[in-house]
């Protein structure tokens, strides 16, 4: 019998791995269905917001792959989103517009005009390549030093993007990307992203990187290469972030280098940390809660009526409450809402008296 469980993320039993991946996919499908219901309930008036939520959720899940399995908080993942967005933009921009907007593009790039799917692949690939190159330098550090260096990574990416005029139009707006991001694209990518996150989390590489997270010295003693064990989640996470960037580029169609900077990183990190960085379920939960709250504050800022009174909430209520949430919540629960727990499908067999210990798939107490 297969049953939904709420427990720590250690797996027991033979089919646990496939069930764990399945449960991540299930979370994605539930979110997808919830989004569909929401679209019907709001009669299509909130479609944009739901779409942006989907992209943000993908960003949070992508960040979880790195933060969850290495314990390093990256403040610089927006850089990969930017790379993904520009890469997708460059390869999918109609050739005619390219001649006008980006006349100095080299070689093949000038003549390609890719449809949606390959464009997203290119976005993820470009981000992954960059991550693979700079990763070895980044992952040597942990804790506050890593936060500073990842922030530096974002500053570097921002300036390079603004400087590389042939590819990005520099400080000018990059526009004309085909608007092909639809509801189905966003949410099916989110489901796939969740699947990849779960696959990675419980794969042998994922387990190794979590061992490095918990005790680098012990892991190294067991013959695990610390740098590699941190680098792989970094690259996987960057690839997913790049894809999210591509989706965003095809949704917003016009953007600039400053669309991906420290300010845009804030809600994504808050979603992950408040939800629970060690857990995929937590990442999704954080994305749902904070996106909902952001929408509520937006409505409040626009003004609301209590009886005959028209009230307007202060500007910046969103970031104010987000900051307060971090300040108040973290001392109380540093691991976020879920901690390391996940929603998992578990195979539950009836306990036989002859068996030592509990039924397979259930945590022994303590």
């Amino acid at each position, binding site marked *: 019998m297969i049953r939904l469980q709420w427990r720590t993320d250690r797996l027991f039993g033979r089919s646990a791995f496939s069930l764990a991946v399945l449960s991540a996919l299930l979370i994605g499908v539930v979110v997808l269905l919830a989004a569909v219901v929401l679209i019907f309930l709001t009669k299509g008036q909130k479609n944009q917001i739901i779409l942006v939520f989907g992209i943000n959720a993908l960003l949070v899940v992508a960040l979880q792959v790195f933060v969850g399995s290495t*314990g390093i*908080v990256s403040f610089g993942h927006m850089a990969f989103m930017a790379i993904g967005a520009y890469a997708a933009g460059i390869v999918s921009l109609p050739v005619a517009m390219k001649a006008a907007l980006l006349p100095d593009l080299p070689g093949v790039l000038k003549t390609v005009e890719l449809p949606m799917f390959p464009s997203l692949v290119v976005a993820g690939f470009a981000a992954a390549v960059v991550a693979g190159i*700079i990763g070895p*330098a*980044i992952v*040597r*550090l*942990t*804790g*506050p*030093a890593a*936060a*500073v*260096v990842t*922030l*530096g*990574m974002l*500053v*570097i990416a*921002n*300036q*390079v993007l*603004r*400087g590389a005029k042939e590819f990005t139009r520099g400080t000018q707006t990059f526009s004309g990307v085909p608007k092909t991001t639809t509801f189905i694209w966003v949410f099916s990518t989110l489901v796939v992203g969740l699947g990849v996150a779960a696959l990675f989390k419980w794969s042998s590489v994922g387990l190794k990187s979590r061992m490095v997270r918990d005790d*680098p010295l012990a892991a190294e003693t067991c013959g695990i290469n*610390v740098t590699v064990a941190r680098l792989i989640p970094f690259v996987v996470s960057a690839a997913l972030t790049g894809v999210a960037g591509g989706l965003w580029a095809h949704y917003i169609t016009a953007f600039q280098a400053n669309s991906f900077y*420290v300010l845009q990183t*804030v809600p994504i*990190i*808050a979603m992950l*940390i408040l939800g629970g960085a060690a857990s995929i379920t937590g990442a999704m939960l954080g994305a749902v809660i904070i996106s909902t709250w952001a929408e509520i504050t937006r409505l409040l800022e626009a003004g609301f009526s209590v009886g005959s009174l028209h009230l307007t909430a*202060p*500007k*910046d*209520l969103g*970031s*104010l409450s*987000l*900051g*307060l*949430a*971090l*300040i108040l919540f*973290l*001392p109380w629960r*540093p691991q976020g809402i879920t901690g390391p727990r996940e929603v998992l499908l578990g195979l539950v067999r009836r306990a036989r008296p002859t068996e030592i210990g509990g039924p397979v798939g259930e945590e022994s107490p303590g």
Partner: protein
Amino acid sequence: MTGIFQVFLDGLSLGASYALLALGLTMVFGVLGLVNFAYGDMIMWTAFLAASLWAWGLPLIVVVPLTIIGGTLLSLVVGEVVFRRVGTQNPLSLLLVSFGLSLVLVALAVQVFGELAFVFPSPEYLSRVVEVGGAQVSVLSLVDVGVAAAILAALFLLLNRSELGLMLRATAENVRTARLMGVRPKSMVRLSFAISGAIGGVIALLWFMKVGSLIPRSGLDITLKAFIALVIGGLGSTRGAVGGGFLLGFAEAGLATWLPAGWRGYQQALAFVVVVLLLLLRPQGIGGRVTDTSR
């Protein structure tokens, strides 16, 4: 020759501010393990205080001490209200809480002062340019260097030649042992926040007199600069912080002068590239000890 001397002076004046910034951060890091993301925003608030006092028509001689006292109080309050509840042994939570604090401070500043730029006034004689050994320097730059030197000397005496400094260093080294020796870690944390805030007050004046204008989002740039200097120098080392600050100052002055025109936009990026390369060779920074934050 004068070119080199000019770069040296520019670097010295830039480096003086950066060294102070890194010192202000490292004081708290040593005792509490906090890398304060909101430091720049606290300085921004202190600068708004100074600008408001000025707008009231108070003379410089009153504004300066009031600003420093204001910065100290703000830092103490923030330390008590926000950071003490997190505890000492969780640098990452502390960092994220300071991240939240930064959001709150900026949002409140936007609320109170609006998004428009404030003019940050400075006395006319400070912007005058004098010639030193063939190089052009503003009086303000010289004041920067002088003030930084005075503060560095005072801090050095406090840390290395007084009992209070010994207690501070002991707490930074090992909280439990310090407690056994009769040091109250709580008061040491307070003291470090006070020093950090006082330094922040000084920087608020020097930094914004140089920049000339002030917006609620000015804090981020300060934080970034402080972080670079801190990481170059090595977390938790006062000497490293000073060295890192000056190194960053000289690097920026040198890059601004000698970088080919086409590369000008990449100044800050290049500074960060240098930091990353340095960290690859020496993860603990130039002056840092090997701690569990570096491998």
